[in-house]
């Protein structure tokens, strides 16, 4: 009983009881919210779409004569990977962008094409669907045959052959066009930071 009186007779408690005031609800500046455009021009690198872990949360769409990233808020999990992945600084979220600029952190992408030889029928759908192939060889026919050596992949003697894996932009168009699920694009992500000089921190 004495303890209770002592507990509730404290000046701090009485002050709290009489003059309780909730601080206004404001979003703190460090909060990692939905990505927002910074106003820089989107270069259509599509790295935001490739880094996004949530299916269908971000897509780059036509806007007038340029491109803009569009966030679907119902799908977005606010992880901020798209902000880190964008090489042109189009998006921002919380303090991720300024932290990246200050610390020199970035995400490096590389793409690998994995083809399951047992599942592949050599139909050539992937070769004709690939947007990089289309640019390199506009004449490519439905079978995926090409005499052009600049294409990423082509069908040779009934088998698919990958020539320039380094040209792959990781768009996964081939994956969706493959009837057997034989081709898989691996998006390899690496966290990188430029070494900082001593004394800057």
């Amino acid at each position, binding site marked *: 009983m004495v*303890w209770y009186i002592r507990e509730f007779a404290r000046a701090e408690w009485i002050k709290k009881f009489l003059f309780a005031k909730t601080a206004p609800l404001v979003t*703190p500046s*460090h*909060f*990692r919210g939905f990505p927002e455009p910074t106003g820089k021009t989107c270069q259509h690198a599509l790295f935001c779409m490739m*880094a996004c*872990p*949530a299916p269908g949360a971000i897509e780059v769409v036509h806007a007038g004569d340029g491109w803009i990233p569009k966030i679907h808020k119902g799908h977005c*999990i*606010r*992880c*901020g*990977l798209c902000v*880190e992945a964008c090489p042109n600084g189009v998006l921002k979220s*919380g*303090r*991720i962008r300024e*932290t*990246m600029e200050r*610390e020199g*952190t970035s995400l*490096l992408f*590389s793409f*690998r094409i*994995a083809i399951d030889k047992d599942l592949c029928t050599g139909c050539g759908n992937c070769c004709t669907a690939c947007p990089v192939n289309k640019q390199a060889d506009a004449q490519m026919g439905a079978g995926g045959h090409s005499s052009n050596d600049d294409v990423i992949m082509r069908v040779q003697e009934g088998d698919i052959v990958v020539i320039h894996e380094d040209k792959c932009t990781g768009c996964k168009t081939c994956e969706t066009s493959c009837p057997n699920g034989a081709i898989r694009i*691996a*998006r*390899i*992500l*690496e*966290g*990188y*930071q430029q*070494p*900082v000089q*001593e004394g800057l*921190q």
Partner: protein
Amino acid sequence: MKRIVDVNIPLGPIHPCFKEPIRLKCEAKGERITGAEVELGYMKKGIERIMKGRPWQEVMFLAERVCGICSVIHNMVFIEAMEQISDIPVPPRAAYLRVIANELDRMQSHLLANFSYCYSIEHETLGMYLLDLREQVMDELERLTGARVTCAYIIPGGVRCDIPKKEAEALPASLDRIEGDLRRYAGMFEGGPMIALRSRGVGILTQEAAQRVHVVGPTARGSGIAVDCRTNHPTYQKLGFVPITRPDCDNFARVMLRFDEVFQSIALIRKCLAELPKGVVRGGGVCKAGETRYSGEAPRGELTYFIKSDEFGRIVEIQIQTPSIMNIEACCHEMIIGSDSIADVTATFISADPCVACTER
């Protein structure tokens, strides 16, 4: 003459004291519990199946969403397992920052567990005090990582961002404030006569029984067994971590142990901040093929990830073993047997801090 009949009392899956749906089927003689069975399966997500075939940048976010209360440790154990597979070194500064994020997460998890124990023994005032304190800890976590719950802070070869200079200076001050408040609340719990009536000598799990049923985490340490995976972690070894134990084996010991561990976490964070090495926070490194089994200490005990990845670092097979399942088993087969009232059943069950979301994944 008073007749005592055997009754079967189901508790849950919807129950005001349980944070998550689970059913306890208690066999009672009058109000004395003679046996109990637990029924799981109300919130199976199948998250391990979703993880298969995905690279780390997607699985990392799924791993966090296994459990909302202890999300940082799931992220940490998964990423450190991937690092072990691919031999990725961690910069020392990043390793210390990981410990800071992990200990802040442990603090908020323990405070929530103690809130829910206070709530289940009907001491709502202390419960709300603790919940208020938890909010402050979560604010600190948000200042460090940018998000309160699903922080996504740890990536292979480092962490997402460095601790800003302003926050590094503000964190010790708020830790002081939290520690001061917590000391008062822990004193209230320790000295409260009503709390002692509901907690001391209730839900006994003797050391032999605890060893037999393989309990982990604070439940084991509350029974005097010094098991803690942090003793195997290189960064914690550098910080000179020693697990805390309590010999009392009852509900009171388990809850007080969590208070002790929050103080210990505060001390660890202070030590980290004082010793924080300079340098980069991301070392780079690509995930490769391999398989491994890696354990870390979650707030509830030992968390193990078994991972098999392919040559591009995608997950081929993944199995998660979470701590709560052992504690739930021990709880219903050892701790609540012989309880004198049904009210003690929920309190004992909550004192083992069951996390059903982890258990069922």
